[in-house]
């Protein structure tokens, strides 16, 4: 009888162990699913943000290119810019120092209005 009781106890121990194993396996599987879905979600949002940054960078680059490819000012334009934007003192100061500006000034045909 003792043997029979022992046998039943051992069977129940094994059943208990198997149940615990099943719970563990389910937990591990669930954890893996959660981690995988989190990684996938993160990748997705990262791609989104990356795309957003890329578009910003692209527009910024376009701006840079505009500056880079802007046609050079002609001497006359440069002079007009200086007349409009700079103070008189600065203008003469610059004209003294810059040969370019000096030659530009010489090339202008001054007319009386």
């Amino acid at each position, binding site marked *: 009888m003792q043997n*029979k009781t022992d*046998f*039943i106890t*051992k*069977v129940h121990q*094994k*059943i208990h162990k*198997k149940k615990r194993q099943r719970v563990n396996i389910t937990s591990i599987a669930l954890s893996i699913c959660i981690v995988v879905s989190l990684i996938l979600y993160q990748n997705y949002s990262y791609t989104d943000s990356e795309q957003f940054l890329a578009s910003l960078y692209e527009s910024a680059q376009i701006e840079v290119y505009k500056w880079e490819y802007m046609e050079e000012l002609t001497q006359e334009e440069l002079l007009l810019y200086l007349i409009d934007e700079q103070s008189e003192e600065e203008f003469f100061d610059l004209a003294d120092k810059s040969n370019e500006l000096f030659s530009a000034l010489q090339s202008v045909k001054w007319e009386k209005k």
Partner: protein
Amino acid sequence: MLDDKTLIIEFLDGDVESFNTLILQHESLVYGMIFQVVRHKEDTEDLCQDVFVKVYFKLKRFRFESTFKTWLYRIVINSINNYFRKQKLLTWFGQDLKEELATKEHDNLTKKDTLYKMTNKLPNKQRNIVLLRIYQDLPFKTIGNILSISENSAKVSFYKAKENLKEYSKISYAK
């Protein structure tokens, strides 16, 4: 002695004691059946416990289409097959050691032991049939039901098993 069906229904209703009674009622049958082929006390006990663990988890799916005993035989047969599959794998890894032990053991074997050893060498299907036919003395129809094969197929496989056993015994005695 309560009948299996009542015990199963009570167990499925949550009465664990009924499951224990079911174990007690069939333990000796399962143990005997396994020991006849495994011939190792500890392994037999372990396998026997595993069989009832399987019964515990699979009983929910038992539809009473066959008797509980037939269903139990099927589980026992599967467990024995798995056991031998594992043994085969272990043999692959420890071939030399096994051979050495086998040579030492060979001289001490009785005729009965030799027959059990030869039965273990048979292919799975034939071994199952020998186990159920010779050791359990079941009719071919029941064997067919247990192994999900026809009665005739069981008879043919049994004949082939006998032929193989004869062949093995010739080799064994020639040694």
